[in-house]
């Protein structure tokens, strides 16, 4: 608890007063490597947005340990690929935390950009216009930018989409390197085998956490079954969630059957 990088306190995130993350409590340890898994619409990306601060909480809070800088690789980037920029221009944006608005890029900065590109297997791509990159190459470029950001907390939202298996291996190696450097890493992943092999901890979401902890424990068949029964759709006339009706003694995995049918009875 003392070494918390992130603390979720009764966090509810969502859209149009419908929760996508419902009353989440818990902590992400400093230096931990956590996979975030769950069905479509289970709140994984929403949680990421909430942590970065792009989405404001409807209730509760995400508390970042002081001095923690986050780097975020979104699932649906708002990147404008038709913008006239080269790979090096895009990756150099990752220097922002270091150089800000006005700081000059030094020779070391330029070297570190090249090194970051090398690390994702794109050495020599510096001068390529970004509109000539393939989907996987672009993803690796964005990884290079995260690398350059040199952040303590790294949030990757489905980073392995459209990436070939060799590259997935390279990117996993990179993630493990970050883990080795005591950075806190959270990754949204769909491939459970990948999670079992590479991630020590897992958060299984279905709007609220179904299970959270050591990966082998979390991904037990009964937990997966419960997560699969999660009811994706909103109910327009779902009753309002009253603050008093919550049982705060059981912060993880409390059922809300009566609210939106997530839970065994709903199936």
């Amino acid at each position, binding site marked *: 608890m003392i070494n918390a990088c992130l603390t979720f306190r009764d966090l509810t995130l969502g859209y149009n007063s419908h929760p996508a993350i419902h009353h989440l409590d818990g902590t992400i340890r400093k230096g931990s490597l956590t996979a975030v898994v769950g069905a479509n619409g289970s709140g994984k990306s929403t949680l990421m947005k909430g942590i970065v601060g792009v989405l404001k909480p409807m209730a509760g809070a995400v508390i970042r340990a002081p001095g923690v800088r986050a780097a975020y690789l*979104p699932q649906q980037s708002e990147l*404008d690929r038709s*913008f006239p920029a080269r790979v090096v221009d895009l990756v150099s944006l990752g220097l922002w935390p270091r150089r800000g608005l006005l700081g000059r890029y030094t020779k070391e900065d330029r070297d570190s950009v090249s090194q970051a590109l090398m690390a994702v297997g794109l050495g020599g791509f510096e001068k390529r216009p970004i509109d000539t990159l393939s989907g996987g190459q672009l993803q690796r470029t964005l990884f290079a930018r995260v690398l350059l950001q040199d952040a303590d907390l790294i949030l990757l939202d489905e980073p392995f989409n459209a990436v070939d298996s060799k590259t997935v291996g390279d990117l996993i190696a990179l993630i493990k390197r970050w883990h080795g450097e005591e950075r806190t890493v959270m990754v949204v992943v769909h491939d459970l085998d990948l999670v079992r092999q590479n991630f020590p901890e897992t958060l299984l979401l279905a709007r609220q956490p179904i299970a959270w902890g050591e990966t082998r424990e979390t991904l037990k068949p009964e937990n997966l079954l419960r997560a699969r029964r999660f009811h994706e759709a909103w109910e327009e006339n779902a009753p309002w969630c009253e603050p008093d009706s919550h049982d705060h003694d059981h912060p993880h995995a409390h059922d809300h059957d009566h609210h939106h049918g997530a839970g065994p009875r709903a199936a």
Partner: protein
Amino acid sequence: MDMLYGLFIAPFADFAFMQRALIGSLMLSLGACPVGVFLMLRRMSLSGDAMAHAILPGAAAGFLLYGLEILPMTIGGLIAGIIVALGAGAVSRFTIQREDASMAAFYLISLAIGVLMVSIRGSSVDLMHVLFGTVLALNNEALALIGGIVAVTLVSLAIFWRALVAECLDPLFLRSVSRLGSPVHFIFLGLVVLNLVGGFQALGTLLSVGLMMLPAAAARFWTARVEPMCVLAVVIGFASCIAGLLLSYHASLPSGPAIILSAGVVYFASILFGTRGILRARIIHHRHRTA
């Protein structure tokens, strides 16, 4: 030699009003063309046009109160433009409506108010003057104003360059590392208004946006990087101003449209012959390399 001198130099050397027109329009290009490049890259090319219309009621208010004086009309235009830019920008940032729709709504309302105000007092000749300007009647006051606007524009662009590029290229990323996203957007809209107002006296509301957008659109066909694109847009702007003024002098044509049409010629030439234009893409690229 004498003929060349007579064609290209004499009009500017002999007439003070031509010199003023040249200085004014060149300064205008220096500020407006880079702003136009960013407008284009943000897919807001038509917003420039909308903003130009939005300036009208402010200018008309200045005209109604003080007659055909540059300062009140400019300040009025500035206020109206900023209200519309901020209003439309705020609606698109804080509601689900996109900027194109909110901008259209705001500028239509603004334009209607402007036409109404001009029609209350004044004839259609005045309206023509407000809409089309006269680059050949720039006085010292107007030149100083344009100079100030250009200075503010260039300094702001230099300071906020990195944020502006980031906001165009990857706005979500900028939001994740900095709070500058929204301020930069509004500063940029402010620069658009400022440059349109600057061009307003010289070229009129309708044509000032032409000097902003056409060189930028033409420059897009020649380069795949922002910095050279801005420089090239300024160069094209310069060339269009010089060509347009000479054309208007020798053929006794109105100066504003002559400048814009010159830029239009460069635009069409760029579509055809640019390194990223039609001919290159269609003909030369039939050959390909092995890797």
